[in-house]
């Protein structure tokens, strides 16, 4: 909510006065860096994608995106007892389950993902599949440099209940509400994702192909440690261009929605909080430039994150 201050200031100016044009100015200082995007969830294998950062004026076509992923690194994951070297894989050669997991990470439809070749690192060795209470150390050796990071899969906190409520005066469109009891006297950070699994009558497939995040999907318990309270989230799929303004961001009556409610350690939260702040305030003069504090040592960008999700399903009826 505090961030609304800067958004509102921005809106005032945008509304009252400003006009915008594209300009070409010199922005000095680009240094190419390795970007590590790795995650491990309870019961699932680690997946790590490696890419390179690009100059702000570098080409941004499809080939540039695909070519930004790098191969040839040595990637290992250790749970403190067992160290496993991950295998290279490419998206056009994955099982349906692996494809779904990668689709959720990249936000690309599995069908499309299988037609392009995005390569990363994973393993089928269950010794380093995610388990609650364990810490996992990632090591990446690439072109003579070593990058390391450790993340923990913390104990999950399930939601007490979830329900759908129409957003009055609307009757057929609303938000998904939840009730949470935050554990007292401990640090807790949460992530909210949703997936509408109702079948789209046009495509015959689930409306959402993978779990999606809305704006500001992470929060910690700085202001509600030990409290029980209600909160709601909007529908991340509800912002398409064809959606009328009056029902944007609402879930539709009758839809079946799966909520993935995850917990994470403090450093992962810190990264994600700053990341979503940058996404929300990028270009806003009322916000300070936000570099995202990676939890990876060695000079790389990105994140190595452990999550402990719990799932709930809600049908959008009162």
């Amino acid at each position: 909510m505090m961030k609304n201050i800067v958004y509102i200031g921005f809106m005032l100016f945008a509304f009252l006065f400003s006009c915008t044009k594209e300009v070409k100015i010199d922005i000095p200082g680009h240094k190419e860096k390795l970007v590590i995007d790795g995650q491990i969830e309870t019961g699932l294998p680690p997946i790590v994608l490696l890419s390179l950062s690009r100059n702000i004026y570098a080409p941004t076509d499809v080939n540039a995106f695909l070519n930004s992923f790098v191969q040839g690194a040595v990637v290992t994951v250790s749970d403190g007892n067992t160290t496993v070297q991950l295998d290279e894989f490419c998206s056009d050669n994955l099982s349906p389950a692996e494809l779904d997991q990668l689709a959720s990470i990249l936000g690309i439809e599995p069908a499309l993902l299988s037609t392009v070749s995005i390569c990363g690192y994973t393993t089928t060795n269950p010794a380093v599949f995610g388990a609650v209470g364990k810490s996992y150390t990632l090591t990446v050796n690439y072109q003579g440099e070593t990058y390391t990071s450790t993340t923990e899969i913390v104990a999950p906190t399930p939601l007490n209940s979830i329900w759908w409520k129409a957003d009055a005066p609307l009757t057929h469109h609303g938000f998904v509400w939840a009730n949470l009891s935050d554990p007292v006297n401990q640090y807790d950070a949460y992530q909210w994702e949703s997936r509408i699994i109702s079948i789209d009558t046009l495509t015959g497939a689930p409306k959402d192909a993978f779990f999606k995040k809305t704006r500001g999907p992470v929060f910690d318990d700085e202001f509600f440690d030990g409290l029980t309270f209600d909160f709601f989230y909007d529908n991340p799929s509800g912002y398409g261009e064809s959606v009328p303004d009056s029902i944007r961001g609402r879930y539709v009556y009758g839809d079946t929605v799966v909520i993935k409610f995850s917990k994470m350690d403090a450093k992962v939260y810190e990264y994600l909080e700053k990341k979503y702040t940058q996404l929300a305030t990028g270009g806003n003069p009322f916000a300070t430039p936000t570099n995202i504090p990676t939890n990876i040592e060695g000079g790389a960008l990105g994140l190595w994150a452990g999550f402990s999700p719990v799932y709930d399903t809600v049908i959008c009826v009162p």
Partner: protein
Amino acid sequence: MKIILLLLIIAFSFNAFTQESTISGYLTDASSGEVLIGAKVYIPSIKKGTITNNYGFYSLTIPSGVYTVEFRFSGQIEKQKLDLTKDVRFDYEFGQDVQQLEEVVVNAHAEENIKSTKIGQIDLKIAEIKAIPAFMGEVDIIKAIQFLPGVSSAAEGGQGFYVRGGGPDQNLVLLDEATVYNASHLFGFFSVFNSDAVKSVNLIKGGMPANFGGRMSSVLEVNMNEGNKKRFGVKGGLGAISSRLTVEGPLKKDKGSFIVSGRRTYIDLLMKAAIPEDSPFSGTSYFFYDLNLKLNYKLSDKDKIFLSSYYGKDLFSFGNKEDDFDVKMPWGNGIVALRWNHLFSDKLFMNITGTFTDYTFSFISSQDQFSFTMKSGIQDWGGKVDFTYFANPRNKIKYGVQYTHHIFTPISVSAESGETVFDTGVAQKIKSHETAFYVADEIDVTDEFKVNAGLRYSMFHHVGPFTRYIPGAVGQQETIIQYEKGDLIKFYHGLEPRISMRYALKNKASIKASYAYNYQYVHLTSLSAVSLPTDIWYPTTDKVKPQRGWQASIGYFMNFLENKLESSVEFYYKDMRNLIEFKEGVLPGDNVNDNTDNLLTFGKGWSYGSEFFLKKKTGKLTGWVGYTWSKTERLFETLNDGNPFPAKYDRRHDLSIVANYDLNKRWSFGVAFIYATGNTLTLPTSWYVQGQDLLYEYGQRNSTRMAPYHRLDISATLKGKEFKEEKDPDTGELIQVKKKLKSSWVFSVYNVYNRANPYFLYVDNDGDFLSGDFKISVKQVTLFPIIPSVTWNFEF
């Protein structure tokens, strides 16, 4: 110190062997009774003179005799033959016997800039300010001083002003001696000073005298009008977005007077008309208003009292009915100053001032069952006693004591969701006492060499109650220390020597130099690239040391063409320590349940530059040209990898040209041009993909520079006819009668050639990677295109 003592001895020795008399009193305007500030009292036969102070008081001690005394003000001169064989109290109403002796004025009054020790100091008359083309017709003091060398704005639409590389918090802005913390309306588009209520403006950007303190860069002293002591009057103006009205008159003729002046914008009404009722944004509006009030009363020949007050408020509302989202953002200042002038003798003048300043900013929002309120603010309770001792024409001593009790509320937050109240901690209030003693002596050592030397000793006590949060590691609990009411948490103090000197050369020229050391116990912190009311004022605490620094300057001052042209070249170097910035990556909400100073990092800065100024004060064509070359840098260990970086308002070149031409008694024209190197900012240098998102990596701090800023404004003023023809009731002949209503039309055009000046830049991305239409581009936001406006001013 030895030098100061020596100078004192020299100065006092002047009157050791001569029979002397003192002439003293107040100079007032004959038509209104307003006191005249900066008027000159001069005795040509002995070439001695003095200048009235901020209360119109003067005192001049000279060898006894009969003299013709000249009173000079604003291009006019009046003479009185006086017997000064004994001490004389002579209050004089200026304007009874005006002689337009421009040549004399040019020779005497206009030499003030080369004769005084003032360096880096500019007095602007309100008439000069009103002659500058105004944005949307609203005359603005802050914008006017930004046309002076060494002074710059943050950006179009930025709050405050920057003097010689100092931050906006380093300017002491005084309205009738009370501190103004936020001198802007509408994010800096207008200042809080209503020009109809203002009598004089004095800017000190270097060589700060010892009677001023608490800020490192400059003093902007604004004095309000006192109101007409002779008759009631009304004046005002109707403009494109705002109107103003002033009423003044005697409380008791020639004894006391009042003035009330108010302004209000009607942007909200225009927005209401522009946004349809059924629009989701129909609750969006903005307006500001302000009110100035001043009373003064002469209790006796030796005692006067003044009550000055200002109250102003900005209110921005934003509503989105579809999302049931509502925001209100009010902010504003309330200021009161009560002063008592007392004459102990014709040589000893005392002023006692009590002040109260209140600045508040609030943010109140709600959406569905959630509500959120944030408040921040400052309250100052102050008092000071200032003495001026007019020892003799060669020696004037000022001394006094000043005290302020600060109550800062950097942030106070409350949040609720239905019945659940979130834990946002207690409101942080930080209390402190700031005290200073000073003495300053202005001495004519010889006819050529003049010195103004002073010493200031300032102290700062940070006291309880106070809650100190000591942060733990990420995700860990912090340690809390609770200080009780009255506990002394930290004490700071320091000596602040000040000196400025003038050496007069032949050919109407002089060399001046100054040195000033300053402590500053308040700080302004900003999360944004532009200055906003959301910027947080933060005091010195146990963790935040006072800002301190020094400035040295040297200048050459010369007049040309029989004093019609004034010119100066000044060079300065400024060193600043204990500056503050937010740490990298800090977010607006991070200081909830925490001390704001835990989010700060500390560093230093420096600035150096040269300023060139050429001014024409008389004739049909008046105005000035100012040029500044400067460099301003900052160094913070924890920012920018510990490397120096340019301040965001670092400007290599800054040129301003202001001109006014009086075509005849009715038409006058104004033009103002400004060119400035673009501001710096931090932009992303690289992009990368993580998760489902494209993210940016930002480069070195302030490593990108925006395009230069330049703009031309013009104005034309048409004064109404002063006289009308009437039939003489006795003779039937047509006679010229002075109209009761004076009026003028001001036509102005802002940004004549429609320059798209950069307000800020940002990197934007649009489209989708896999569909092939993705694009990253740099966008420039511009605020104001060409804006014509018309204002009608009236007075009766």
